[in-house]
């Protein structure tokens, strides 16, 4: 259950990040990952502001990336979070 994913690198990193986040959110919601739309705001799935704070804790615990507790407020969809996190760790310019 507690798989540690190495920090993302390279062009495919966003895809892997999106997949990891989708799996995580699906687990929280007790749904299949196929049922999670990465472009739908997490709040629409009933994952409220307080939960969003715990997602940042998960990201830190499992990915080793330090993020602000309010990160998911400013990047409200899985896709936005994935873009943000990969932009954070890429050496080069953000995509």
């Amino acid at each position, binding site marked *: 259950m507690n798989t540690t994913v190495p920090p993302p690198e390279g062009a495919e990193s966003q895809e892997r990040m999106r997949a990891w986040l989708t799996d995580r959110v699906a687990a929280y919601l*007790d749904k299949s990952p196929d049922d999670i739309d990465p472009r739908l705001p997490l709040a629409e799935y009933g994952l409220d502001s*307080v939960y969003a704070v715990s997602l940042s804790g998960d990201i830190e*615990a499992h990915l080793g990336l330090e993020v602000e507790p309010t990160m998911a407020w400013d990047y409200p969809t899985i896709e936005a979070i994935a873009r943000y996190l990969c932009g954070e760790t890429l050496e080069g310019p953000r995509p």
Partner: protein
Amino acid sequence: MTLEARLGDPWAAGNPVGFAAVVRADERGRLLAEGERLLDDYGLNRDFVPRDLGGRLGDVSRMARSLRPVFRRDTSLGLGYGVTSFMAAVNVWAAGDDAQRRWLAGLLCRGGRAAVCFHELAHGNDLANQEFEAVRRDGGLALRGRKEVINNADRAGALVVFARTDPRRGGRSHSLLLLDPATLPPGRVHRLPRFGSAGMRGCRLGGLRFDDCPVPAEAVVGGEGDGMETALRAFQVTRAVLPAMAIGTLDTQIRVTARFALARRLYGAPVTDIPHVRSVLAGAFADALVGDCLSTVASRALHLLPREASVYSAAAKYLVPKLLLDAADRLALVLGARSYVREGEYAVFQKNLRDLPLLSLGHAGPANCQATIISQLGALAHRSWPSGDYEAPASLFQSGRELPALRYEDLGLSARGRDPLSASLVAGSAAVGEDNAAVRGLAAALVAELGALKTRVLELPPRDRTPAGRRVAFTLAARYALVLAGSACLNVWLHGEHRQDRFTGDDTWVVAALHRVAERLGIRSGPLPPYAADRLCAEVIARCTDPHSLDLDNVPLSG
């Protein structure tokens, strides 16, 4: 003259702010006018205003303890006169601009009130789903909706309003506004009728309805969309300090019960000779000490451990009111009929019984606090339990030590798994000497509980750590709050400056306190060990006969 000295002997018949007067005012559903005048003269509001704005507020834990004389005397006066002003003002101290801070500070220092306009009947503590809205209009905003069950809505000189500024769900969809009701256009805001309440009867719980009321853009506190983040920071402060103040209310409940028990004779001796009564008095005093330790530590953590403090203040606000209420209920059984009679020498007891529950519900309630903890359990268990990265500094547990300034911007909404207070439990447990075998045993039991919690938390399916989770997460959060309380008690005993005091320098009080915690966890059963019950009961009687506060500080009282 100190506040305590001004309040005078609560039992003196002629005292205009004595218990008899407090009860009479409550019967009429009014705040004690003499009490309000006394607090005006004393300038109590200055305790809520930061020093750099002309007030006396520096160390919030010291401020909380300085409110205890008011809570000992009249809980509704404490809440109704000033604490709700503080609850409103904290948002402005945290996020307001210079003009807003100065204006509010001036108003409070002149004796004015601020009303915290968050609550909506349809949504209660569920801030995220609130409907009251502020829409853009002509370079400013227009307010629409109702705020109800708002203390001092009808007489506040400042309103701190929480409003939705974006229809989308999420954490950036709300803003805070600071309003001067005198400048609002007439006809666009209406006062709603006052709500009667079973407790805090003197508090003026009114409401306001805004009908497309225009307000200037400058009314926004912080940035548009910052409302939720600012409110959550402000809640951390009020969640820690309100329970710390309310220890004063339990103090009075214990004192009234002891007074009754000393005066009443049964079987040829005072009621205080009856073992069960001694046990109840001792247990309630131990509970007050547990509450004092946890709330003081949580308040000091805001200054010393701002990134980690969110969990501790949630734990304090969840657990301490529960301890106070449960203790008061057990004391009621000793008082018998005097616990519900609304007149006579002990009548303040029933007033406090009715007032206490509102301290929880009128502000972040237990469920909200547990939700805060639940959302962080996974990270805490994964990263820190049991020993963590680092322990808390010893000064966390030394209530007389100077604190660095409270930096609101450093208050983290999540501790992100860091837990120095739990690490201090483990370190503290190892530091207890063999002379204190009872303490060693209890501390070790709490460390074992922390280990058990870690296993159970890591086994929880992620869904149980969301708002849709099952009851089990709430149970684990409640157990963890008790473990934190145990750590606070143990480390206050180990590191606190009270070691010179005859009572707190001994280990009996901490044995009693830890026993109370362990009993709630189900890892100890039965009443306090007899020697501890006797010692604490004797201390209660001593502090009633020669009046001193029933908390760690043990300050002399009037009367």
